[in-house]
């Protein structure tokens, strides 16, 4: 990492159990706050009641409903029912060790189960490069699930590069840029155009020919970013997490603030959401069952995306952070607890002259890695 400008991690959103960046306080953090471990952190994985950070030195630190720290860790995946850690193998040249712990154990005592990762004759660097891939496991032919069976295999033909798990679905990004989805589909989160469940990984045909660079799974929604910087969204939009107009937010706004109204022939008012592209009033969308292209403000190109339970965060190529969706616990970072159904920039980073490089969301919070802007 030589030659990089100094960067730090920030967090905002739900800290009800005192997890970073709450540092012991229970109130939501509505604006980005530097994490205490900040400079040394290289990865963050947040569950609902606790957050795990991995430092460059290979230490994992837990805060929130469980507190502790242990060394020789490459990667961590924090879930409410399970804390999964990828640890260095016992000796040089041996494969990594996958451990699943009860979160309450704080990594002390015995893990619930252990699985040795095979080193497939490739060099260690390749294996290390796969750190940060959880729940996808090294070798990309298996993954960890939060429900039994905890260890699951993947067909090698999928050429899995990245795997994300929602509350009831899974998204997989292949090395050729194709996206697969499977699991429950009742909220349209699979993107195949129906509400039916899919038992096995199924290719998203709607995105064929558009190579994707990133996928992100929220509780019941899915987001992906193409190599050309476009954002596609699908799934549940009940809190505006797809940046599509949602009825619940329109009803929360005062009736006078409804953006566009029309008049029926008898001049009774028509309450509608914002006007759509073609000038016609856009209706509310609660479920989007296949991918929709989302335009970020100012025509920005997206670089990275992450989803919380019901919110979405996207980093642009120019280092800005946009968030939208459920905001009740400050997880959008706009200094308040309003939910939004359109992308809004997190001004904190602009104000502080910081360039956002990465984002990772917990269910109800958001963690951001940003570096100081280079002097021009």
């Amino acid at each position, binding site marked *: 990492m030589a030659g990089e400008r100094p960067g730090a991690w920030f967090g905002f959103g739900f800290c009800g159990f005192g997890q970073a960046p709450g540092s012991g306080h229970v109130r939501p953090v509505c604006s980005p706050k530097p994490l205490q471990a900040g400079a040394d952190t290289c990865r963050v994985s947040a569950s609902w009641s606790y957050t795990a950070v991995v430092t460059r030195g290979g230490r994992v630190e837990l805060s929130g409903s469980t507190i502790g720290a242990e060394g020789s860790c490459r990667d961590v995946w924090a879930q409410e029912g399970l804390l999964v850690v990828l640890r260095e193998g016992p000796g040089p040249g041996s494969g990594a060790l996958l451990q699943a712990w009860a979160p309450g154990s704080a990594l002390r005592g015995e893990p619930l189960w252990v699985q040795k990762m095979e080193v497939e004759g490739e060099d260690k660097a390749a294996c290390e490069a796969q750190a940060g891939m959880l729940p996808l496991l090294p070798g990309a032919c298996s993954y960890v699930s939060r429900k039994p069976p905890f260890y699951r295999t993947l067909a090698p033909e999928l050429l899995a590069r990245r795997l994300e798990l929602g509350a009831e679905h899974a998204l997989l990004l292949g090395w050729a840029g194709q996206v697969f989805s499977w699991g*429950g589909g009742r909220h349209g989160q699979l993107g195949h155009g129906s509400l039916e469940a899919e038992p096995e990984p199924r290719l998203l045909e709607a995105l064929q020919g558009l190579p994707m660079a990133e996928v992100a799974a929220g509780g019941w929604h899915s987001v992906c970013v193409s190599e050309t910087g476009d954002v596609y969204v699908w799934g549940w939009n009940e809190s505006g997490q797809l940046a599509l107009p949602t009825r619940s937010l329109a009803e929360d706004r005062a009736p006078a603030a409804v953006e566009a109204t029309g008049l029926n022939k008898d001049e009774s008012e028509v309450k509608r959401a914002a006007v759509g592209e073609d000038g016609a009033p856009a209706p509310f969308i*609660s479920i989007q069952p296949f991918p929709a292209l989302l335009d970020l403000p100012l025509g920005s190109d997206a670089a990275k995306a992450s989803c919380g339970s019901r919110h979405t965060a996207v980093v642009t190529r120019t280092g800005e952070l946009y968030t939208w969706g459920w905001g009740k616990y400050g997880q959008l970072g706009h200094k308040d607890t309003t939910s939004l159904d359109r992308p809004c920039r997190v001004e904190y980073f602009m104000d502080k002259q910081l360039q956002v490089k990465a984002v990772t969301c917990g269910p109800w919070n958001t963690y951001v890695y940003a570096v100081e802007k280079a002097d021009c």
Partner: protein
Amino acid sequence: MRLRNAAFRRSSALRHFYAAGVMGVFLRMRGDLFRGILLWACRACTTPAVLCHFNILTSSAGTCPNKPAVGQMGEATHCPREPLAGAGMLWEALRALLPNTKEELKLDLSEKVERSVVMLLQEATELFYEGRGDECLQRSEVILDYSWEKLNTGTWRDVDKDWRQVYAFSCLLKALCLCKAPGDAATMATALRVCDMGLLMGATILGDILHKVAVILQTHLSRKRPAHSSTQEQPSTKKAKNDPSLIPDLTLERTVPRLHCPSLQHFKKHFLVPQRPVILEGVADHWPCMKKWSLEYIQEVAGCRTVPVEVGSRYTDEEWSQTLMTISEFISKYIVNEPEDVGYLAQHQLFDQIPELKEDISIPDYCCLGNGEEDEITINAWFGPRGTVSPLHQDPQQNFLAQVIGRKYIRLYSPQESEALYPHDTHLLHNTSQVDVENPDMEKFPKFTDAPFLSCILSPGEILFIPVKYWHYVRALDLSFSVSFWWS
């Protein structure tokens, strides 16, 4: 109805369609169509409608954190804002429902409920008993939001009962905390709404305490509520809807046979066993509801209770959706006052929520001919203005549909005719027909017009027997209230 569009496979078309706004149209059709499909799937699968439509269920039971808790959702129009004289009495009454010690206010939860949630529940309970209402409220809100997410994960059948208990418990604590400080009636109405959310989606806890809290709140609220001007109004009668051509001419149709108080044996032999529909007269006409129920009465008994309402006359409507509101709001918005949209309080177990109304109805004796227990019978309320429509579908249980207020036009097709009714081919909707019964697309559905059917106009006091899996289509000809009994 095709769920796939071949054009969509071409990736470049994706951007093009979107830019041209064509996709916008496509999205609009699909997005709302799917919401509609979800509803009708639930109609046919007999799961209570509200439980399947998570898109409408706000986690914080209607409270928005950056708005004051009072004065929301129009409750202020019914409930005055001055502090209640009886606020102290209310709190006493509520407090009397609770055990004396925090150790007794506990749920028996399995390991499925995560340790962090259990911790937070304990903390919230402790804070409550220590009188720290605001802090308890904050934590209750968190547990409510978290358990709500669990309730929305997987199919309703798969949701662990423990999570429903947790949800109910958090609703209880929240409602109690809201009532702690001498607040105004709007806060009480919010607390009642929270109770209703817990009753609608939660599991019964602590001796059905949410019901008891709801009754106390309801009593206190009705003491304060001024007489409604809306009770004086008649249901809206728009000119167009008086069009007589909308009332079907049954002389042209084969009608459902009618019987007056048949014996159990007769009914079983001639209708239940051979699975034939029949209208039973003289059975329900002396139920108290037939004389007692009116808009005024329903408002009095249940006006401030929150119920699920379907908005939009058919699931193919762009604007179709489902939402929650109080019964008073429903009557005001969708029955009187020249409604803009069709609203339907449909497929809701109102009588579990408001036991007082249950006293006005009876379970038909003929249900004892079935295999199930009496407490397994599902009783649903169907309350709405003229014009509500339930598209053609079939249910997996026997049904007695009792008409209380107004008339309904009902058409019945035998399960043997299923092929001519073109059910959807998806698993979700295989018991819903694609055909619009009173306006069928004869090109798309050619076999439909020749399919034989029985029809009737069901009037107050009458009960229609709909055999299991018998296809039925229902349209309200007047302001209507029906009660259905699903039994096996």
